[in-house]
């Protein structure tokens, strides 16, 4: 059985205090769990873009979208189709790395075209960017070495092709 499709939303908002809270609150009120949320500035001054990934059925998400529309500081909401978009995430993984295991870890990191961004006596920190499945695959391979910490930005997504921001 295939996994249920996730709802990926791009939300453009005015960069004002309280907007993020307002947006996330609506998801909670409709019982939609936000699995991932990434926010950053855009090419338009004063406008931020959120990429939100939510579980829950389409209908519940439709209700949230209708309520989101009423937020006046919200510029636009758009569902992102993962077949027509490029999605990337950045992850940092701190892994237990005694000397005898360092080479094995480096080999895995190279295969994934990830980078080692920090090395200590008994740990290494790996930075990886790519689609969420790629990050997950690396994490799964590093897990036997002993993962001490993981931090992920959450995916960001942009339409493929000529579809510029409107």
């Amino acid at each position, binding site marked *: 059985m295939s996994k249920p499709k996730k709802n990926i939303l791009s939300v453009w908002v005015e960069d004002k205090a309280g907007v993020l809270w307002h947006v996330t609150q609506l998801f909670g009120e409709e019982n939609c769990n936000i699995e991932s949320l990434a926010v950053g500035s855009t090419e338009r001054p004063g406008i931020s873009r959120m990429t939100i990934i939510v579980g829950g059925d389409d209908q519940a998400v439709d209700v949230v979208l209708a309520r989101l529309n009423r937020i006046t500081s919200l*510029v636009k909401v*758009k569902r992102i189709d993962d077949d027509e978009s490029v999605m990337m995430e950045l992850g940092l993984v701190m892994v237990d790395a005694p000397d005898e295991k360092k080479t094995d870890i480096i080999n895995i990191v190279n295969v994934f075209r990830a980078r080692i961004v920090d090395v200590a006596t008994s740990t290494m920190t790996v930075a990886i960017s790519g689609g969420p499945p790629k990050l997950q695959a690396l994490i799964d391979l590093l897990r036997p070495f002993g993962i001490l910490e993981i931090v992920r930005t959450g995916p960001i997504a942009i339409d493929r092709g000529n579809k510029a921001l409107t």
Partner: protein
Amino acid sequence: MHHFDAIEGIVRLRTAGRIAVAAAHDDHVLQSIWEVYRKGYAHPILIGDKEKIFAIADQLGIDVSTMTIIKEMDERKSAEIAVTLVQNGEADAIMKGLLQTADLLRAVLERDKGLRTTGLLSHIGLYEVDGYSKMLFVTDAGINIAPDLKQKVEIIRNAVFVARSLGVTTPKVAVLAAVETVNPNMPSTLDAAALAKMGQRGQIRDCVIDGPLAMDNAINLEAARHKHITSEVAGDADILLVPDIEAGNILVKTLIFLNKARSCGVITGARVPLIVTSRAESSEAKYYSILLALAMLGQSDPERRGLS
């Protein structure tokens, strides 16, 4: 096909079209777009002053929150966004809201980013007139001020495309003038004769063209017979091509205000239909104008350079 209901019959069978509404914060526009949305004919994308859009919608008692809404306070930018949505393949038609027609057309016609085709933009009005056996298309009473012969060819092509979208497979085009004979002192009669010949020789396809015809013998068989005019078009015209915008304006205003004709219209010749209605027009006219644009979607026109 006599009644406007026929347009709705065509649209009902089609997939809902996506209409980008530039500067959507207008009560008449929201009311008419709501009607087509409510019936499942269209997915509107409202671009404009969001606060005003919701205030107007609340006042009208309509729910626009399930429509796609893009906040844009600048009216000219809202037109640019509508054009970009079409470029992105996210909209199939554009509707003018509370902004100047010139601002919308400027965005549509912009050289690099606009929606130009190799054709000419022209307005086609559609009228349901009591006492006439079918709906009448009138062109161009809205865009081209004094078209020359070449432009009239394009205007006819645009009108034929619209008529065919409504199921009039071989529309009869009457090229109007003040008289039904060629008079070298009246340039519109010379153009009319040339257009009729171009139609006869297949230079303008999918229609039957005759002219010059005076208004009476274009739409009244008795008048045509009285003048001994033998013509497939005379007395039975589908499309009236007026010589210039003034004649067109007088004709359509007479139909609407004296004859109480139901009316709607669309601008064609760009990559997508443009729904440009004036505030003076009724909500019904706006509603049918949207339907007319929707009826055009997905219709292929071999001569129409990129109309989707």
